[in-house]
């Protein structure tokens, strides 16, 4: 059986599915970052906006991923783009929550001293607040990335391709080989995403903060 699984993994169909899976995940994460980070910077200007963004995103996190993908179907139809949009929607809340919390918890005294040193609001954001919030922001990216890679498996149900297609084929044909040829790479992909982003998170922590870098809001 291992031989047959390996054969499937070496096939063109597998490479295509893997390519789709990676493209879907990477684009969804990228677009979500481009939306969530500026939004977090924006809402961090006001405690009320920040509170609303965090709470709405928390409710958003409770929405099942299959529900988000399935709801894309009646409105947007089948294919890669609807899947990408659904995965992006799914990817935003964890990033937004962590970035908003991270930026909010930068001590006011630090921001004050930066202002006293003559830094502009923009400089304070990019040189002080984002670096200090970086570990928390990267924790959010990690949660989001793992969730996107996992949920991209479901894109196959709305015609978005990806490695889920192999698993579905395996389940429909009752073929353990196809099931495993999809399932094992998907699991490895999710685990390496988790480990990769954990490493990024450590690297993103400014040197001066490394000792106290154990804060990681969920």
């Amino acid at each position, binding site marked *: 059986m291992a031989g047959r699984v390996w054969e499937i993994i070496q096939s063109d169909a597998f490479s295509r599915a893997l390519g789709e899976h990676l493209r879907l995940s990477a684009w969804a994460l990228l677009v979500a970052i481009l939306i969530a980070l500026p939004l977090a910077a924006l809402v961090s200007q006001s405690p009320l906006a920040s509170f609303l963004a965090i709470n709405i995103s928390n409710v958003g996190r409770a929405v*099942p991923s299959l529900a988000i993908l399935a709801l894309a179907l009646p409105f947007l139809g089948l294919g890669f783009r609807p899947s990408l949009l659904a995965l992006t929607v799914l990817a935003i809340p964890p990033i937004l929550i962590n970035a908003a919390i991270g930026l909010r918890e930068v001590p006011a005294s630090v921001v004050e001293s930066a202002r006293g040193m003559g830094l502009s609001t923009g400089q304070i954001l990019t040189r002080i607040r984002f670096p200090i919030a970086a570990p928390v922001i990267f924790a959010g990216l990690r949660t989001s990335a793992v969730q996107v890679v*996992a949920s991209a498996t479901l894109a196959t149900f709305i015609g978005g391709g990806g490695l889920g297609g192999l698993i579905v084929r395996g389940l429909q044909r009752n073929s353990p080989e196809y*099931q495993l040829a999809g399932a094992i790479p*998907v*699991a490895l992909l999710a685990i390496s995403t988790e480990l990769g982003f954990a490493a990024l998170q450590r690297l993103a922590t400014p040197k001066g903060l490394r000792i106290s870098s154990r804060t990681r809001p969920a």
Partner: protein
Amino acid sequence: MGDELIRWRWVRNNLGDQILPALWQHVVLCAVSVLIALVIAIPIGIYVTRHRSLYTPVTFITGVLYTIPSLSFFAMLISIGIPIGRTPAIIALVAYSLLVLIRNVVVGIDSVPRETLEAARGMGLTSRQILRQVELPLALPIIVAGIRIATVTTIGVATIAAYIAAGGLGDLIFRGIDRDFSTQIIVGAVLATLLSIIADFGLLAVERQLRPWSRRRAARAA
């Protein structure tokens, strides 16, 4: 099948024999899974607080289980010969809950102040009595916070379990996708979302009820 997004007549006609049974199946599947996970997680969590060196390996293993995407997890279980249906679904759902439940049992017991334990010991309570009468009751709010996260995750993942014939709200979603019938998809997806949000808020209320004395900080940290 039909152009409108939602056909209310279909909803009315299928409420009793399709929609409510699917909702009920979903609730039962999730409740059973979270309960089994609790029965496993509580003793492991207690054991880990007494044998610290196990904390890292236990969270590592349950962390790996938690990271495996659900469709992949189901497929692996089925490929090793477990027949499709509720069994593989419950195994995977239980596995997903273990990380957060064990971690919160440990964090909860750890949160009990040392003075409280010393007072209990000074009053002559045995370790077993301290566990049951002091540590677990004081750890309860944090354990409930874990149950809340586990339940919300389980409700979401359980929708996918319908694909391997475990029933529940996912059935409506998958059947709707197959027939290209948006009403069925929307009913399934919206009910799963509502169930998840209701469970989230409901358990949050329970958690707050249990900790009138403390600020909500520990809840967020957990």
